[in-house]
């Protein structure tokens, strides 16, 4: 029984076009008791975690999804004949990091931290759907306010904003080493 649920969930994650949240799984499997679904999910994670298979079960952006194992990247690119995926520019990464830690935030607050105008970068991030507009600040001028999206979490393989590097982690790195510039 529990094995069956596990297999159904495996199939659901496989076909889902985006990370499949436990809530959605429960919605689809409304006929089954919640505890059984939770147990099946845990078993599934254990199964996939135990062996070093080619397919991994990743928990990101509040849901589950299958990906290939990072080590196999060269083979996959050889098969699909694609170059390495392009990374975000430094400007985009800086802007994104600021939004991630200070959200909700306005364009001028971002500019104040970066020391440069960031309108162009904000636009690019909006187009890439890594950030979104969520309203306005009630200060004079009523500027637009930005937040990161689910796609942002997925892009970095984070499950939630709580997975962002913590203050302590950052402080430790600051002391540890002079990270080289650029």
């Amino acid at each position: 029984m529990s094995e069956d649920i596990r297999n159904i969930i495996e199939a659901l994650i496989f076909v889902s076009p985006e990370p499949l949240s436990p809530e959605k799984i429960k919605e689809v499997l409304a006929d089954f008791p919640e505890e059984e679904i939770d147990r099946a999910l845990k078993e599934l994670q254990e199964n996939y975690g135990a062996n070093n298979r080619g397919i991994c079960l990743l928990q990101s952006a509040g849901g589950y999804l299958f990906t290939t194992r990072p080590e196999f990247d060269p083979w996959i690119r050889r098969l699909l004949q694609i170059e390495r995926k392009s990374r975000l520019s430094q400007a985009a990464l800086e802007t994104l990091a600021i939004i991630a830690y200070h959200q909700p935030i306005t364009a001028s607050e971002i500019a104040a931290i970066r020391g440069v105008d960031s309108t162009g970068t904000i636009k690019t991030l909006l187009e890439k759907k890594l950030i979104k507009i969520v309203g306005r600040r009630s200060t004079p001028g009523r500027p637009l306010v930005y937040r990161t999206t689910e796609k942002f979490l997925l892009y970095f393989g984070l499950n939630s904003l709580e997975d962002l590097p913590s203050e302590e982690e950052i402080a430790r790195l600051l002391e540890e080493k002079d990270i080289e510039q650029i």
Partner: protein
Amino acid sequence: MESGELQESYQVRLEIFEGPLDLLLFLIKKRKLNIHDIPIAVITKDYLDYLAKKQNINLNREAEFLLMAAFLIYLKSQMLLPREQPQDDEVSDQRQVLVDKLLEYQKMKITCSLLRQKEEEQQRRWFRPFIPVVPTSEEEEILEVNLFDLAECFYFLMKQKENEDFKVLKGREVSLEKKMQEILDLLERQPVLDFLEYLKQQPSLEEALVAFFCLLELVRARLVIAFQESLFQTIKVWLRREKLIEETK
């Protein structure tokens, strides 16, 4: 030629920095200075030396660098002024603001390096490239939209309208009845009316809208037949002949 190349290389160097704070941080690190206790005079000199190596300042990109230079010079001058009273609070406050900014910026740079690692790992993972097809009646592409999409979509629709070159004539009243009669008269003279063409001839957006309402009214009243072959194609309009025949009977 040589000096030209040299100039070029400086050009490239400044491009490396994401902004004035980035450059400042670089100079501080280079001299192994304590960020909490920066000797303003030294760092101002370094900063200005750096900028001076650039022959042409690109104001679009470098205004922020110049602004920082001005600020550093101001700080330095304030600190060098002979003081009759003890340390000017305002200056030390401003200095503290700069230090805080640098610290915040440094933290952000570290976060970036951590995110870069995550990006690196995530980019080597591959997702299934295709989304399963669900058989449905509609064949429309379904998307997930956010507020930016919504605003952008509206913006482009309006842009499109603008490009259609409607002139706005203010104060001109267009009566529905008149417009309706105009369309009917046109249809009496020509068998088929290309409605998009007709809309384009309208002198104002308002009048075009009125014309559109009229068409809808005429269709509703079963006086005309409007037909659109497919999406985004023009609407062709005919007079409903059987109606006229019925009436003459």
